[in-house]
């Protein structure tokens, strides 16, 4: 499980802390969502988890081990991250790409063993991209590419998985498919942390939602607890109403129209 306790992250020239005393937990077997407006600190938390941002205060732990005491490769054997952006300049076969997820286990020189091949095969199947294994990464659609990236993360065989906005630019079907995939990965026992703007989908799929505002936790809990019109209005500074999703009755957010004061 991932534990974030009183985390403070700050960038060199920023006036205020990007993350300012945030605490939450991502238990195994659950899908936990991190939501909030742009600039509320979501990506900074992911960066802190990867040790790519300076942790000024507090701790981030994975299975009770402080990430700042882990080496980079130890960390990569404990948590797999699918970052928001990734431009691969040189296309390669999907299988070779997914196999790069074994790097934290192989290091610079060890040749892939049977276990490594099996991990790659399993990851391809789990993410539902085994049919794409022989394709080139530059021939994939947006949805396929995201699933292949998730497969690469799964090949790392870590107990925790973090995804930063994995459904940006995807259409409804592909977006739903990714959420279903993440949900089933959580059920299989992974601790899954999902950074997402899609409050309505998050409300349907996540066990817990952590809603950030200006680097602090504004509210957290189940969808029913978090999806409160007044609170969301004050966080997003936009008028909203909460309705019920007609299919399963989950709370759903509807932003209202309002003329811009130009």
């Amino acid at each position: 499980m991932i534990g974030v306790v009183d985390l403070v992250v700050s960038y060199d020239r920023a006036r205020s802390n990007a993350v300012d005393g945030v605490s939450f937990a991502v238990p195994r077997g659950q899908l936990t969502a991190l939501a909030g407006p742009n600039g509320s600190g979501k990506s900074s938390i992911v960066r802190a988890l990867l040790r790519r941002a300076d942790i000024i205060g507090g701790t981030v732990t994975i299975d009770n081990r402080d990430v700042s005491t882990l080496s980079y490769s130890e960390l990569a054997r404990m948590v797999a991250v699918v970052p928001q952006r990734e431009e691969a300049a040189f296309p390669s076969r999907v299988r070779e790409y997914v196999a790069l997820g074994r790097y934290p286990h192989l290091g610079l020189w060890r040749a892939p063993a049977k276990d490594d091949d099996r991990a790659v095969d399993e990851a391809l199947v789990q993410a539902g991209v085994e049919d794409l294994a022989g394709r080139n990464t530059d021939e994939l659609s947006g949805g396929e590419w995201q699933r292949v990236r998730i497969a690469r993360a799964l090949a790392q065989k870590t107990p925790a998985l973090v995804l930063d906005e994995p459904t940006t630019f995807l259409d409804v079907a592909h977006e739903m498919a990714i959420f279903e995939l993440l949900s089933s990965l959580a059920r299989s026992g992974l601790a899954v942390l999902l950074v997402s703007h899609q409050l309505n989908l998050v409300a349907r799929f996540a066990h817990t939602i952590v809603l950030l505002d200006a680097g602090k936790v504004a509210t957290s809990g189940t969808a029913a607890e978090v999806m409160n019109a007044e609170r969301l209005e004050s966080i997003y500074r936009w008028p909203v109403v909460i309705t019920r999703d007609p299919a399963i009755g989950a709370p759903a957010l509807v932003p209202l129209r309002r003329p811009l004061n130009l």
Partner: protein
Amino acid sequence: MAAVAYGAVSVSLAAVFEALRGHGDPTAIAIVRDLRLPRVVLGALVGAGLGASGAALQGSLRNPLAEPYLLGVSGGAAVGAVVAFAFGVSSNALITLAAFVGGIAAVFVALAVSRVGGRSTRGDMRTLLIAGVIVGAFANAAIMVALARAEPNTVRGALWWMMGSAADATWERVTWLAASILLAGGALVYWAREIDVLSLGEDTAASLGVDSERSGRRVFLLAALLAAATVSAAGLIGFIGLVVPHIARRLGLRAHRPLIVAAALVGATLVVAADLAARTVAPPTELPLGAITALLGVPFFLVQLRRTA
């Protein structure tokens, strides 16, 4: 072998083998052993160094148009050499050393500039590339100023050097270049898997357990070292570092360990071939080697640019 045999004076292949074993006509022995062979070996080493350097850089910068000379190495090395010429230094060894020091100095300036220019202390590879280009441009300006005040002989020497040539090959130079290429090239091959991971982008590299900042700088430095060594040995030989990695990738290689090795071999072959052309197209005049490789490289560059656009 063909490259050893042909030149302003042709030596038959049989005579080449004779000469290598120390038999036959003394003139042929001298031409083969002291002129041609070191020259061919030097050309091969220069090509190997530039090819390996380019392959590593394109991968770690995720930029198919990256090449070693963009790092400011060439400009810095040229400044070093021209400064040496301007002070009337005529010793080959000293000019080589000056070029090497200039090239490495330029890289460190680029590293420093990228730290200032970056958003934070964790400057990314792109900032590094831009810093290299800027340092290179500054170096070129410095060369112009230096040459404007120089004597005609100095200008000629400096120009010839900037056009690139394997003509001044000596066994001493070959040995020292071979050592640097084995060292820096070997290190790149050693860390090649990190380059595979780096080529996925900094965030992804970090998620796979590679400290992208440290690892990126290491590749940058090693690639620059290779380039500086080749530039100091044979002047500026353009476009090999850009073109050769693409040829190696066409061979179906993706992982950087075989890719870097293949790029070294292809680079060696190309430079030896280009040097052969430089010597034999219009004998006894020698065409500048750097110009020949650039004549081949520019059209390729444009085609590549169209494809990525």
